[in-house]
């Protein structure tokens, strides 16, 4: 029982990391019908910058977090200017997939060349001693991940729901032209969505760092699994990522424990394929009738 609860919490924490990365896909997909296919590498960059500043240079934790946010903003801007904006202008409808893949490859390779190809430990500021609650030991970092991830998702969704700029984002997602008739600058909204999603990915990097290792490859598989999370929940749904994250995170934790560690990735992808076969726009997605 004890072990079951530990597994449950570990799986949820892992799932929330996926949910955060997936949330980044959803934010930009709804405004621009595109997302960063190398989002996982933004997460990696957040982890690496965090490691360099906090572990190697002993900069205070909150200062480090602020620096990571700035890095996220900067990377979001560069990504938008070099890959997204030209792709949205081009006629090809898959240019953005390739462009963001290319961007991610460049980013990852740069980290390898200019920093390191090794993986490093990142000790949690909350320490590694499990908190014991009724005989169940839980890592404080896992609790932190769950709390922070939920806070970020709820904060962004509330922002969209209750503020005028947030409503403008929803309006752009729904109908760009009509939104611009309201005086909403759609380009800026799209740029904003990419900045926001990049910052969230970089923050997810520091969140996940203590339970994985930090290195140039840490984001690839994470980013790929987050596609699954995002699509299972529905690319255009906000809170859907939380459910998607739980499904993938828990299936992974339980497969690793009861079947084999090597197969932990398999159920998530199987679920993805099944969901798409039966619900092509995900569990919370909207189906759109195409007019001819």
């Amino acid at each position: 029982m004890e072990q079951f609860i530990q597994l449950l919490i570990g799986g949820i924490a892992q799932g929330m990391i996926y949910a955060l990365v997936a949330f980044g896909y959803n934010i930009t997909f709804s405004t621009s019908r595109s997302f960063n296919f190398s989002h996982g590498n933004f997460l990696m960059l957040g982890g690496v910058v965090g490691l360099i500043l906090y572990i190697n240079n002993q900069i205070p934790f909150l200062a480090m977090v602020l620096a990571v946010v700035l890095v996220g903003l900067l990377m979001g801007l560069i990504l938008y200017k070099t890959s997204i904006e030209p792709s949205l202008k081009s006629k090809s409808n898959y240019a953005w997939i390739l462009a963001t893949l290319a961007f991610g490859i460049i980013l990852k390779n740069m980290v390898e060349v200019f920093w390191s190809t090794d993986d490093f430990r990142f000790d949690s500021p909350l320490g590694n001693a499990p908190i014991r609650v009724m005989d169940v030991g839980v890592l404080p970092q896992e609790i932190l991940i769950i709390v922070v991830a939920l806070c970020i998702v709820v904060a962004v969704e509330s922002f969209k729901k209750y503020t005028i700029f947030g409503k403008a984002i929803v309006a752009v997602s729904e109908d760009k032209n009509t939104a611009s008739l309201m005086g909403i600058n759609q380009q800026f909204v799209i740029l904003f969505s990419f900045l926001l999603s990049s910052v969230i990915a970089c923050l997810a990097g520091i969140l996940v760092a203590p339970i994985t290792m930090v290195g140039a490859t840490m984001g690839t598989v994470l980013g790929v699994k987050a596609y699954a999370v995002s699509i299972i929940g529905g690319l255009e749904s906000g809170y859907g990522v939380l459910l998607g994250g739980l499904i993938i995170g828990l299936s992974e934790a339980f497969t690793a424990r009861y079947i084999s560690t090597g197969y932990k990735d398999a159920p998530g992808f199987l679920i993805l394929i099944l969901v798409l076969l039966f619900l092509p726009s995900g569990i919370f997605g909207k189906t759109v009738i195409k007019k001819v």
Partner: protein
Amino acid sequence: MKVLEIKDLVVNYGKVTALKGISLDVHEGELVAVIGSNGAGKTTTMNTISGLLSAASGDVLLHGKSISKIPAHAVAALGISHVPEGRKVFASMSVKDNLLLGAYLRVRKGEKKQVMSDIDHIYTIFPRLKERQNQQSGTLSGGEQQMLALGRALVSKPKLLLLDEPSMGLAPVIIDEVFKLIESIKQRGDMTIFLVEQLAYRALEVANRAYVVEQGRISLTGTGKELITNPDVRKAYLGAGKS
């Protein structure tokens, strides 16, 4: 004084020339209508004014200043409010949020309080909207959506109101209601209105002046009263015929 002036406007959709040189003007406080059958170029004219389309040549002037190179969101900031064809309410959002977004620029400027009382005023004009203020606007009927689209445009306090096919897809009774509203907005006299409409007689009844477009060109112009009895208007719609 001319509020809006269009000079030799040519607009292409890809390879199609939708407007082949249109010139018209709208004076302060007037209601000017553009009528014509489907595909004549009415909506294209409208979308070019509001910046959704760009002109191949010619110019659009607002109070004498060119706005043809300005993007749509900046045109909106100049005091033009465009009620698009097919209403285009933000279907997933509540009635209230739609109205709020209509006043997006005013709220960003910090006039939120004033906007809220304007929205209350809109509710007095359209009591149905108040009843449904928290309902998703996609669930409204066509007529209610048209009211919402009108209300959304009004809360921005425009100087120039562009109305694109307000009758489209509505039942005749509802069309009556919509045109009564347009008439009452006109009577208030604080807005210049530019109306594009397929239902010629309806538009001509409320319009001070009107232009008839055919195949991307203006074929006829006159006051509403003149045109309503002019048989050429009918020919513009149903062809010259053999009779």
